[in-house]
């Protein structure tokens, strides 16, 4: 049997929160019947929107590539099922109330049919494909991070491999309350997840691997221990993490596993570490051993506002309404629709919006499910937020800076070190939505940085044009000067002028000769200029 090591390390701040997921910790993964319509946003990744490869009216096969990534920060999109492309249009997306984006809309050929449940047999073949080839296949299958940001897995592995990482951490912490989709995959498909993680380890060239799971997920820990024992792999270890939010945030996870606190601005790759989410590992296994693109994912649909909470295997592009309906619909308590967990999620205005590769949880919150509800009051400087902040920030100072929106002060308070864990807002006795202020401030600062870059570019181009115009004017003036009568010409200029005159004369002669050869009724060589 494989030993489950408890980690000796801790991270600053953090809090042990009630999980609110007991029922989902034993339930199986349910398979959503295929919806009538799937809406696939072209922008699901950090990079530029994917470029559609299909036309409206076209029939597509299940797993067919329907949009191509224009850059390494975006992954290809594939059709989750056999369908007809019925539209390429702007649709409302998860995010702010007015968030919109281009989407491919698919009408499924066989709505109501059930896709396959997660495969039972994970296979046992050797995993010895060259890393570059694994990365190509990950990219071709559109595999992207399922933990939220949907960063393309192939790119992450490629970047990491350049620094020859020592460790791949499989992130099975799933520390946020209510969310239970990774745990469901670990319980029911640990062997496949482990093989997927091994593919990802090879793709990144990491020498060893650690599977890190929070201590309150006993079934997941046991399943993974059994899977690991069955493989006999000695380069993998299984670690039990303390139940302390946000243990699954990348920097905190790295600190728990290795004891190393990444300083501000230091990337995991620089410390020789690459982290992948459990769902991503499962998708990698499907891509490499089942030849299936990442078209589905497991989503936790939960909260007091939905009748029958469940972990649902659903196609990417499923509208939120379809998921909620599958889970018995809304209850009378339904109060607010949140995509993501209660601390890090975003509230959405309506349920017509589709899930993406990064959507791990749909929380139909009853009033009691909300993190720290209540009317906002003034900050009383209690310091509770400082005590819980895992990034060692001063959230109340950061709040003042965010309200004033001054770049210098925001930088001093290290705005961009905030990992948006939401703990400060969760504990604030004045019910201040601190993290919402930080998100807004980050968006404003990024906007200003973009504007500054655009202004610098415009300035450079404007000045280059001024120089060009000045040069052209100077040239013209010099030519005019040279032609001025009465000015004694330098001998070289005389020669030049004679040469030029001779050249012009020769061209004129040629033209005349051509005109004489041509029959009189031939159309003119050139139409008159447009202006």
């Amino acid at each position: 049997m494989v030993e489950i090591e408890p980690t000796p390390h801790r991270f600053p701040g953090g809090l042990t929160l009630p999980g609110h997921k007991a029922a989902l910790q034993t339930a199986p993964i349910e398979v959503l019947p295929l919806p009538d319509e799937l809406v696939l946003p072209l922008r699901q990744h950090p990079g530029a929107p994917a470029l559609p490869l299909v036309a409206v009216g076209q029939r597509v096969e299940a797993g067919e590539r329907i949009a191509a990534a224009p850059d390494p920060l975006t992954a290809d999109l594939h059709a989750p099922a056999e369908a007809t492309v019925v539209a390429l249009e702007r649709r409302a997306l998860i995010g702010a109330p007015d968030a919109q984006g281009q989407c491919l809309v698919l009408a499924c050929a066989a709505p109501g049919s059930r896709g396959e449940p997660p495969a039972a047999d994970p296979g046992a073949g050797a995993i010895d494909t060259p890393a570059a080839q694994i990365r190509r296949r990950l990219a071709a299958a559109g595999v992207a991070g399922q933990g939220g940001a949907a960063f393309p897995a192939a790119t992450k592995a490629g970047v990491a491999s350049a620094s020859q990482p020592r460790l791949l951490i499989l992130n099975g912490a799933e520390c946020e309350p209510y969310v239970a989709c990774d745990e469901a995959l670990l319980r029911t498909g640990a062997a496949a997840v482990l093989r997927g993680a091994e593919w990802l380890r090879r793709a990144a060239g990491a020498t060893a691997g650690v599977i890190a799971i929070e201590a309150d997920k006993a079934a997941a820990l046991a399943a993974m221990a059994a899977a690991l024992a069955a493989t006999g792999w000695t380069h993998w270890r299984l670690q039990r993490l303390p139940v302390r939010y946000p243990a699954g945030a990348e920097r905190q996870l790295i600190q728990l596993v290795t004891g190393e606190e990444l300083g501000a601005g230091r990337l995991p790759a620089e410390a020789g570490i690459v982290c992948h989410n459990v769902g991503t590992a499962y998708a990698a296994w499907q891509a490499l051993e089942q030849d299936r693109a990442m078209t589905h994912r497991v989503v936790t649909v939960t909260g007091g506002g939905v009748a029958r909470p469940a972990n649902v295997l659903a196609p990417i592009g499923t509208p939120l309404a379809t998921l909620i309906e599958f889970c018995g619909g809304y209850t009378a308590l339904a109060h607010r629709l949140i995509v993501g967990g209660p601390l890090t999620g975003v509230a959405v205005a309506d349920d017509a919006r589709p899930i993406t590769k990064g959507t791990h949880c749909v929380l139909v919150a009853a009033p009691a499910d909300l993190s720290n509800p209540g009317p906002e009051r003034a900050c009383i400087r209690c310091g509770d937020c400082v005590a819980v902040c895992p990034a060692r920030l001063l959230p109340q100072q950061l709040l003042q800076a965010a309200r004033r929106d001054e770049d210098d002060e925001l930088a001093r308070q290290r705005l961009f070190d905030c990992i948006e864990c939401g703990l400060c807002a969760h504990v604030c006795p004045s019910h201040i939505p601190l993290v919402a202020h930080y998100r807004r401030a980050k968006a404003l600062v990024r906007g200003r940085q973009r504007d500054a870059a655009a202004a610098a570019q415009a300035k450079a181009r404007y000045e280059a044009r001024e120089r060009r115009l000045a040069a052209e004017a100077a040239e013209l003036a010099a030519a005019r000067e040279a032609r001025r009568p009465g000015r004694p010409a330098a001998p070289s200029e005389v020669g030049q002028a004679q040469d030029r005159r001779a050249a012009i004369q020769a061209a004129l002669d040629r033209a005349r000769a051509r005109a004489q050869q041509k029959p009189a009724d031939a159309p003119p060589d050139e139409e008159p200029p447009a202006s």
Partner: protein
Amino acid sequence: MLAALLALGGLGAATGGALALAARRLPPDADGLVRRIDAQLPQTQCAQCGYPGCRPYAEAIAAGEAPINRCPPGGERLVTTLAALLDRPALPVAGAAPAPAQVAVIDPERCIGCALCLPACPVDAIVGAHRYLHAVLPAVCTGCELCLSPCPVDCITLQPAAAPAGSPTADVLPARPSATGGG
């Protein structure tokens, strides 16, 4: 070769002359001041301030010839910054309110390839040649609108600029009710 040398010489003479002129018109350290003012201007190069670009407007401000509130794209934020930089009173912005980011788009069905818009663009954002279809480089266009009026067939329109990659919208709702929010 010789022609190029002559042209370069001419350019040197021209800029030298311009610098000499500027030096005469402006107080000492003016060049540094102009640069500091220009660094604050939005560089849209739209000429709405009445000068043929941001740098000329910066020079006019430095020379004390222009008020600091003539740049609509810069808006109130710019006036506040300039007021602090120059120790002058802040004035309300003259002209239109700053518009959201936009880019020019040439309708390929209607462009006749006349090339009249090419010299109008202050940042060389339009590519094309006589009797060939023209196009605007969206990553370079500042949305200054200067190319609109020269077009004889009105085929250039301004459209909202695409949101840059990976940018969240500025107003992300708090994931819970606040005193002002609903629910």
